[in-house]
């Protein structure tokens, strides 16, 4: 077990390192000069600066070093929690993110919990319902939820609940009320994704012989559904928990932009608009880290929840004594 654990952690670290390197390569190796992009986005003509000024600016952000030096510098920095300096705001990237990550984690975390509950409830109802039209409707609902672009869901919510009914504020980060619509926006997508997987898993589980056995020995439909089917159906769905969390994190980009919330997602959108390469690199690295971490935790927890899967070396099976 210890060996599996160690191997799995090393593997996760390697994937994370590779993801960082790939993003670095995309951002720094493609034929575009970060400084030039940055100046163009800020509306400054590169010609208007003297070569001395340009060199000084490049030196300040470390852009005059060779690509390898920059890479090692960044990698070493990331390992110490230092993501360099923002090109557009000239403050440490870690400060920028530090101020905002609380908002985003609150939003994504709440959305993840809500979508877990809503997705499971929907899948449960869809497979439990007996009246066929309702069953078909509930089974098709997730496909509908997954087809709506998130910004559209957000705009519909704003139009209806802010402008028509006036229940929730259309933008801002004040109070718990402003959190409701962004969370719903994200959850519509993520709970649909989860429900689709869960419904399929439920359908497979309900066809298993032990379900028939449980029914045959006299358990009620509800008891079978809750005790026997749900736990077994939820196990395969757990593997997409990483995807769900990843989706809630990336959804914050669109959601925070629509609802004007000062979080990391909006920071990412603004940084792409202002071509702030170090900030983009930092946001992508952090999101990848969250994704890899959740997947690692799920992988490690899986054998604990499902005793049929074991990563310990198979113990010699005790011989069955037949008399």
């Amino acid at each position, binding site marked *: 077990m210890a060996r599996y654990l160690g191997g799995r952690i090393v593997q996760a670290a390697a994937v994370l390192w590779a993801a960082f390197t790939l*993003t670095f390569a995309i951002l720094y190796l493609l034929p*575009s000069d970060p400084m030039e992009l940055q100046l163009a986005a800020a509306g400054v003509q590169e010609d208007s600066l003297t070569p001395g000024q340009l060199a000084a600016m490049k030196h300040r952000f470390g852009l005059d070093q060779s690509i390898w030096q920059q890479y090692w510098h960044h990698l070493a920095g990331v390992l110490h929690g230092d993501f360099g300096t923002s090109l557009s705001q000239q403050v440490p990237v870690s400060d920028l993110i530090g101020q905002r990550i609380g908002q985003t984690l609150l939003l994504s975390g709440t959305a993840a919990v809500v979508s877990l509950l809503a997705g499971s409830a929907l899948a449960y109802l869809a497979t439990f319902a007996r009246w066929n039209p309702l069953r078909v409707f509930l089974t098709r609902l997730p496909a509908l939820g997954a*087809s709506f672009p998130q910004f*559209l869901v957000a705009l519909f919510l704003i139009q209806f609940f802010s*402008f028509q009914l006036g229940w929730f504020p259309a933008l801002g980060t004040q109070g718990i009320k402003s959190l409701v619509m962004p969370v719903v926006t994200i959850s519509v997508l993520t709970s649909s994704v989860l429900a689709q997987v869960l419904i399929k898993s439920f359908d497979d589980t309900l066809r298993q012989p032990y379900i028939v056995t449980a029914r045959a020995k006299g358990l009620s439909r509800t008891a079978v559904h809750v005790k026997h089917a749900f736990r077994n159906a939820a196990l395969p769905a757990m593997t997409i928990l990483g995807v769900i969390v990843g989706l809630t994190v*990336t959804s914050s980009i*669109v959601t925070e932009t629509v609802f004007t919330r000062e979080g990391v997602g909006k920071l990412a959108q603004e*940084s792409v608009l202002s071509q702030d390469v170090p900030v983009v*690199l930092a946001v992508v690295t952090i999101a*990848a880290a969250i994704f890899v971490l959740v997947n690692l935790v799920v992988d490690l927890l899986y054998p604990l929840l499902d005793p049929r899967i074991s990563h310990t070396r198979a113990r010699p099976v005790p011989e069955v004594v037949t008399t």
Partner: protein
Amino acid sequence: MTATIAEPDQELQKPDDVRVGRRANLTANLAQLVRKPVFLLAVLYVLFVVVSAFRPRLFTSRGPYDTHPEAAAQAPSVHHLFGTDIYGRDLWTRVLYGSPLTIKATLIALAIALVAGLGLGIVSGFFGGLVDGLLMRAVDVLLAIPGLLLALSIVTALGYGTVPVAVAVGVGIVPGFARTTRAEVLRVKTLPYVEAARAGGASWTRVLLRHILPNSWGPVAVLAVLDAGVAIIAIASLSFLGFGAAPPAAEWGTLIADGRNYLVTAWWLSLLPGLFVALLVLGLNHISKTLQELTR
């Protein structure tokens, strides 16, 4: 009892009556599809959007940039199906003229995903061993970066516009194609007819091109239809965030984002184009789902 006796007779007759083969299969499948009204509706809508993308004049007589200040910000009516914007431009026309940009971007994204994904998947599944291990680790790394963020970093590096957005989205859906293709190739590779073809003296290249590829593209095609919907959402999201084509050209996402500022007074400006996009994605998802059920 009679049923069990009747069965062998039917089986004996089969080779005479039923034409076997891919074409017969196809016609049978098509006949089955025609009987599904929702599926037909979805196909018709997707066809309509694609045709309107290439020939918008067929469905509107106005120009996308014709301003009519006297008819500004009018609600949807028979005259203006989707209403007009604050400059009096007909929104229906602008949505239709926005189609080519988004459809083109979707096709580019799908082409990238198909070529790269099919290539990676086939090489990986066919050669196996070390090559397979290396390629699949690379795919794992691509999957570790959440899709939209990978797209954002590519857009940061390449700049804004329809093509960079398409490339960014295309690269994001490569891993899915690579994995599906690989799984299919691995499955087909072990089937008896591949062995038979090899035993009959066919080279590996021939086996790959003539036997493995035609038999493994089914699930990949289903995935392609599904991913067309995913790509449309991603492209619309990216242009909604402001990384799409420069104004006055208007992709769907840009139209919706612009309309956002007038949500209180003119809700149709962003909600109707939004519904237009959502319906298209819904249609593609439904088509993909029906095809998937069919191939099962």
